[in-house]
């Protein structure tokens, strides 16, 4: 099974380059969409195979070394780690990518040069898989960069004035984030002489985990990754960038990119590399609570369907970061309660998965509605429930899931987060979470009222049902929304539980291959603050 891990990155990247070549060959150029779909389908198969292979031992960690040369007693090479958390992320990424590419086959027909879209899309998918599988800091940075540069291109894909403006804004802010991530990685390298996450984690206590240099590195990484995750107050780019992209890309950006490049990396670094500590956990709690509340208040007043969804992405990711932060806070107490921390993490990770499913579903249905009515403004829609039954049905399931109505998946994950917050001794935060859930419900009642019910206005009169492939993609995600809610207990045991355990173990979760050995790099004395 070990050999399958690099394929997750290799297949999409290879297919992306293949498509750029084949697009110029006469006769085959029409097949680029098929090749892209097959590549993503293969990725779904591989990620599920990796999960099934870990059936007997859900917590197992598979690591693959590329290179693995002997460098003075320490292995030199690129490590890919496929542990419980990475398996969860890989499954989320590839399932959403697969559904999105089915939707895109029909939706993207309105654009010219669709092969460029497929190529960038595969580049982004492959790089996102790389981010969650990367076992060393620098590769994580490189994959984040590949994924986000591809996404800058995709946001501006339509080349209209607003799309270009959004893409430029996203590019500037994204680049600042990347520079800070690289700064953090550089400082960590100068302190420990290693880039491998496990090695850095095992060496950091020796150079002093609370030293000023480590704190500077943590601050740079926290800032950069929060920008990628669009946490308040780093969120300004998201409501412009996500709605401007074509609908399948909005689904991919909101559904997967901000999770893999932002929240996953935050959790991985704060728990597994820096080691769980109360201070970092408190920062995550503040970021999460602020995003949750401010995001939803900004969302309620929106009349543009896709902007409304984008603001809800900020708010819902706030839930995830809040739950993860509270888990970190519980672990770093003097008397940690593992069960409550595990419950927090389960709630957070489950909500992350659920958000990927229902937010992608909502963005896809917004794309379907936009294609038929030619508008994103809620006030110019109306009466779509009768004219577009499949889209409306799926849109309702998505709205009910995000609003937290039983028995859909969003209800269970929000309930678990709220219960876990109360158990962890944060009743105020729990009350805040309930308030945000109510506000979310309110704003989606608005969507239902204006888009799906009432009398049709303008172009909505002539709206017809979306093409079959788009309907199929939306139905697939609706099924995921329902099944994930009902199959919560087995999923917890085999998917979310092991993923949470990786974070629970803190800095010991990633096993260093060799923790002793000569390092090429001597720690910079000036940075450590012990200059002779």
């Amino acid at each position, binding site marked *: 099974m070990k050999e399958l891990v690099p394929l997750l990155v290799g297949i999409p990247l290879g297919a992306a380059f293949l498509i750029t070549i084949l697009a110029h060959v006469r006769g085959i150029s029409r097949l680029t969409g098929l090749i892209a779909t097959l590549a993503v389908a293969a990725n779904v198969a591989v990620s599920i195979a990796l999960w099934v292979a870990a059936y007997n031992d859900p917590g197992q960690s598979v690591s693959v070394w590329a290179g693995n040369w002997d*460098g*003075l007693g320490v292995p030199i090479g690129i490590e890919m780690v496929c542990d419980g958390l990475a398996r969860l992320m890989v499954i989320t990424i590839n399932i959403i990518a697969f559904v999105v590419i089915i939707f895109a086959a029909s939706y993207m027909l309105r654009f010219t040069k669709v092969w460029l879209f497929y190529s960038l899309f595969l580049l982004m998918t492959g790089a996102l898989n790389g981010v969650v599988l990367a076992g060393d800091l*620098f590769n994580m940075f*490189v994959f984040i*960069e590949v994924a986000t*540069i591809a996404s*800058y*291109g995709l946001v*501006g894909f339509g*080349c*209209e*004035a*607003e799309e*270009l*403006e*959004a*893409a*430029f*804004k996203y*590019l*500037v802010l994204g*680049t*600042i984030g*990347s*520079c800070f991530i*690289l*700064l953090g990685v*550089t400082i960590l*390298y*100068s302190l420990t002489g290693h*880039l491998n996450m496990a090695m850095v984690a095992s060496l950091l206590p020796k150079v002093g985990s609370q030293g000023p240099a480590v704190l500077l590195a943590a601050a740079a990484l926290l800032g950069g990754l929060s920008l990628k995750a669009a946490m308040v107050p780093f969120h*300004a*780019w998201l*409501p*412009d960038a996500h709605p*401007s992209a074509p609908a399948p890309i909005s689904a991919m950006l909101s559904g997967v990119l901000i999770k893999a490049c932002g929240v996953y990396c935050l959790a991985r670094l704060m728990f597994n590399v820096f080691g769980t500590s109360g201070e970092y956990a408190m920062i995550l709690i503040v970021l999460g609570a602020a995003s949750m509340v401010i995001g939803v208040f900004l969302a309620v007043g929106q009349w543009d369907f896709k902007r409304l969804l984008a603001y809800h992405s900020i708010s819902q990711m706030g839930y995830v970061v809040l739950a993860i932060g509270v888990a970190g806070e519980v672990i770093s107490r003097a008397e940690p309660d593992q069960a409550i921390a595990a419950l927090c993490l389960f709630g957070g990770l489950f909500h992350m998965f659920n958000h990927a499913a229902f937010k992608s579903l909502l963005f896809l249905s917004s794309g379907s509605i936009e294609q038929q009515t030619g508008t994103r403004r809620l006030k110019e829609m109306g009466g779509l429930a009768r004219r577009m039954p499949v889209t409306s049905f799926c849109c309702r399931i998505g709205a009910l899931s995000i609003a937290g109505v039983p028995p859909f998946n969003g209800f269970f994950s929000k309930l678990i987060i709220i219960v876990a917050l109360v158990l962890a001794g944060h009743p105020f935060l729990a009350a805040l979470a309930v308030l945000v859930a109510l506000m979310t419900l309110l704003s989606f009642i608005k969507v239902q009222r204006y888009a799906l019910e009432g009398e049709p206005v303008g172009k909505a009169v002539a709206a017809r049902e979306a093409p079959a492939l788009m309907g199929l993609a939306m139905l697939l995600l609706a099924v995921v929304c329902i099944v994930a809610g009902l199959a919560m207990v087995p999923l917890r045991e085999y998917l979310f539980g092991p993923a949470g355990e990786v974070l629970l173990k803190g800095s010991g979760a990633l096993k260093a291959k060799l923790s002793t050995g*000569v390092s*090429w*790099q001597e720690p*910079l004395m*000036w940075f450590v603050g012990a200059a002779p």
Partner: protein
Amino acid sequence: MGTVIYILAFALLLFGIYALVAKKNIVRIILGICILGYAVNLLLVLVGYRRDGVAPILAQGQSSVELAKQAVDPLPQAMVLTSIVIGLSTTALAVALAIRLYEKYGTFDMNDIRNLRG
């Protein structure tokens, strides 16, 4: 003396951020992105630097432990190459977007390019 150059790298970083925050001209913003990238790249190279270090090439008969004691660290140099390539592609994309924006709006001034509000 050794710390001065780190302070300079940090000052460069601040210059880059200043350009991004305070300037409204797209071309200047792109220059700010470049400066920010250079600052981090400079820091990255400095991390691998060693005073009076030799090039990290293994001579015949020399053991790797001996080389590691004298040579500069080659890993940051490899990393900085990757980082420069990433910076190049980001800059190229930013310039391409700037040209398309100029075609659409007829200006490089961000004050006039304001259809979207955060």
